[in-house]
């Protein structure tokens, strides 16, 4: 059955009326013919998976033809906003979902800024895109109606110029009545580590989003329209004030996120001896990159739609105004780590500049920094040579080299062609097979963040079982780094719904903490809440299932208890695992890079820590058991049958 038949069958099953007053429609767009169809996510799906990431998985499950390949135009690209997106403070997020061309497993990326909220302002909760545009096109959603524009004049533009041109041509105002997602040259060139830009810095990253959208010859989607409030069964603004107060009253928001942003994390990671350095050959790096050294280059903070936290640092290197990369947004901690210690770079000015270049080129700093670190180690070891690099000497700590490589990657020029293929560089013949031993990836996706997880076993398990690949944003038990929580067993037990060992380097009961985090983060993604401001990620006192439950009731009229929401988080993971299973993912893929098993950490109080294979395997089995998964990591038969019945497979 082709994609058009699949869509037709699915649309015929969807309700044509909203299931709650604020619900937006799901718009199915055949890019080849520009035919539009729509319906609404059914209530049974909302009560099983919510919206956003959860319902995206419903649509992918129903429309995926795994006999094709990720960049085939019949593999849909799906954007979805959460139930509370655009309505609740700090719920400005949405997900982009498909089959990842880089990793080969699910593609699922979360992004904030303004597009997810403004999509909802246009009465659209999900966009399902399939088919290939006959020529490069721009889709414009104006007050809920779709228009098309020839995108030929925009082809070849990167993010900075693209945003300037579109604002001038369409006459809207960013952050007030206009938002956009767009690909850059890197996406156009099929670079697998390119993302879909969702703002000056915001990016749907990881797995090849940019290459996927560009393969459909869709340069951009622009929303135009006025913001408004939503009709709801119960007033939601009073409870919004409660949520905002909770956000702003939380220590981590007050002391860190709103003042410095995430670079604050660099210092604790390096003091712990857990800062991935030179592709995780080392685990600590210079204090010269501590957040305080970024202070002189941070003129202020920005935020996403209706978020009171404002955690995104602006930057200004005080260079000449003609220097395109002398100012911008960021860097975040991940960029600081991936382009600092990971590449042996020790100057904040260099990291900020490289960050600004990546934001313009549409390169995902997590995957790009990882691909670069991998290449540098391969060169260090003689696994690749100047014969591979076109004569370039790949030395650690050389910002000028990295800058050159970024542009070469975006253009797939010379050695940049190898970097552009990300984790697939061996498969595509750029590197010898021996290179895989040093690839810091799980399920074909490089590690998202710079934290070396040999010490904290819950972090390690999370990276192994994350459904989209090696990524901390799916389930990280971040509070394992907080001594006060570790030293309060009763509090820790309440947080995770059962005992979890106080020792961060212990394997005991860590599966319980990962399970709890994976559930609440999946719910957060499905209501549209930012991860930073979701309970358990950065603080035990941020909004969590109880607040989501109350506000879902106000906004939708659906009564979903915190316990039921916890089950919905599990369902989202379950559907993702069902999809991954169709794509060939098995237990052997829920693992970690060999380095973390075989090479002990050499720095700090936890020198000697590594991942023990037998202990890890036992922890993985326990994780499967409490997650209602079989030994191969898919939902057990009864639950699988229930999910499949709900999904309508």
């Amino acid at each position, binding site marked *: 059955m082709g994609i058009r038949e699949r869509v037709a069958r699915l649309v015929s099953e969807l309700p044509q009326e909203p299931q709650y007053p604020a619900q937006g429609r799901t718009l199915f767009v055949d890019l080849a013919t520009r035919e539009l169809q729509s319906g609404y996510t059914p209530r049974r799906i909302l009560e099983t998976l919510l919206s956003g990431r959860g319902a995206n998985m419903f649509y992918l499950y129903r429309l995926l033809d795994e006999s094709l390949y990720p960049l085939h135009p019949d593999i849909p690209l799906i954007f979805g906003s959460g139930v509370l997106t655009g309505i609740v403070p700090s719920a400005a997020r949405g997900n982009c979902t498909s089959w990842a061309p880089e990793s080969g497993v699910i593609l699922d990326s979360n992004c904030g800024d303004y597009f997810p909220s403004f999509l909802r302002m246009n009465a659209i909760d999900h966009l399902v895109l399939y088919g290939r545009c006959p020529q490069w096109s721009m889709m414009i959603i104006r007050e809920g109606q779709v228009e098309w524009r020839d995108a030929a004049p925009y082809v070849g533009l990167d993010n900075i110029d693209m945003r300037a041109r579109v604002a001038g041509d369409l006459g809207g105002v960013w952050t007030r009545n206009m938002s956009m997602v767009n690909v850059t040259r890197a996406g156009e060139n099929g670079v697998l580590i390119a993302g879909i830009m969702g703002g000056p810095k915001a990016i749907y990253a990881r797995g090849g989003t940019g290459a996927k959208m560009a393969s459909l010859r869709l340069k951009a989607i622009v929303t135009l329209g006025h913001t408004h409030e939503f009709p709801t069964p119960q007033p939601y603004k009073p409870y919004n004030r409660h949520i905002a107060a909770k956000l702003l009253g939380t*220590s*981590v928001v007050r*002391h*860190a996120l709103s003042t410095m942003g*995430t670079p*604050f*994390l660099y*210092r*604790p*990671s390096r*003091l*712990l*001896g857990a800062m991935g350095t030179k592709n995780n050959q080392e685990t600590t790096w210079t204090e010269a990159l501590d957040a*305080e050294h970024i202070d002189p280059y941070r003129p202020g903070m920005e935020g996403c739609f209706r978020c009171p936290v404002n955690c995104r640092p602006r930057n200004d290197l005080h260079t000449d105004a003609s220097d395109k990369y002398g100012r911008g947004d960021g860097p*975040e*901690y*991940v960029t600081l*780590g991936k382009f600092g210690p990971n590449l042996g770079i020790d100057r904040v000015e260099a990291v900020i500049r490289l960050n600004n270049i990546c934001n313009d080129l549409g390169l995902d700093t997590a995957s790009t920094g990882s691909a670069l670190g991998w290449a540098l180690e391969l060169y260090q070891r003689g696994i690749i040579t100047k014969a591979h690099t076109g004569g370039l000497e790949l030395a650690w700590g050389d910002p000028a080299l990295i800058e050159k490589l970024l542009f070469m990657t975006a253009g797939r020029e010379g050695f940049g062609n190898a970097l552009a293929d990300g984790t697939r560089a061996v498969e595509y013949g750029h590197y010898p097979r021996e290179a895989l031993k040093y690839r810091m990836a799980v399920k074909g996706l490089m590690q998202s*963040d*710079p*934290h070396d997880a040999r010490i904290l076993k819950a972090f390690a398990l999370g990276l192994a079982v994350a459904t989209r690949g090696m990524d*901390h*944003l799916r389930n*990280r038990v*971040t*509070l*394992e*780094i*907080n*001594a*006060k*929580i*570790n*030293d309060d067993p009763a509090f820790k037990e309440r947080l995770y719904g059962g005992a979890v060992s*106080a*020792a*961060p380097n212990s394997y005991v009961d860590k599966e319980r903490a990962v399970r709890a985090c994976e559930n609440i983060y999946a719910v957060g993604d499905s209501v549209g809440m930012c*991860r*930073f401001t979701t309970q358990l*990620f*950065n*603080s*035990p006192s941020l909004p969590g299932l109880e607040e989501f439950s109350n506000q879902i009731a106000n906004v939708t009229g659906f009564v979903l208890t915190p316990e039921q929401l916890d089950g919905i988080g599990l369902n989202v993971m379950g559907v993702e695992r069902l999809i991954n299973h169709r794509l060939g993912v098995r237990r052997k893929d829920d693992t970690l890079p060999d380095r973390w098993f075989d090479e002990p950490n050499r720095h*700090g*109080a936890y020198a000697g820590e590594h991942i023990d294979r037998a202990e890890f395997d036992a922890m993985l089995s326990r994780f499967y058991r409490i997650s209602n998964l079989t030994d191969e990591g898919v939902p057990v038969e009864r639950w699988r049958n229930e999910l499949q019945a709900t999904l309508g497979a």
Partner: protein
Amino acid sequence: MAITVRLPPMLRRGADTLTITESVHTIAELVAALDRAQPHLAAQLDDTIFNFAVNDEMLIHGVDHHPVEDGDVVEIVPAISGGN
């Protein structure tokens, strides 16, 4: 006896370090001494965001009873571990 304590910006009331000269043997005793040196500091430290690092090695559990000794440099580190 002298233990140097580095304070993060949000806990400073002027100087960025305090020197504790009382005889203390553990982090818990150090916190009590800090509270005497800078009233209400102990209450401020009763916050999950704050970790301690002793001589540039961060402690992530078993903190109260962790030994400190003359000449140590103790840093109070606001610790979050998310990232994007």
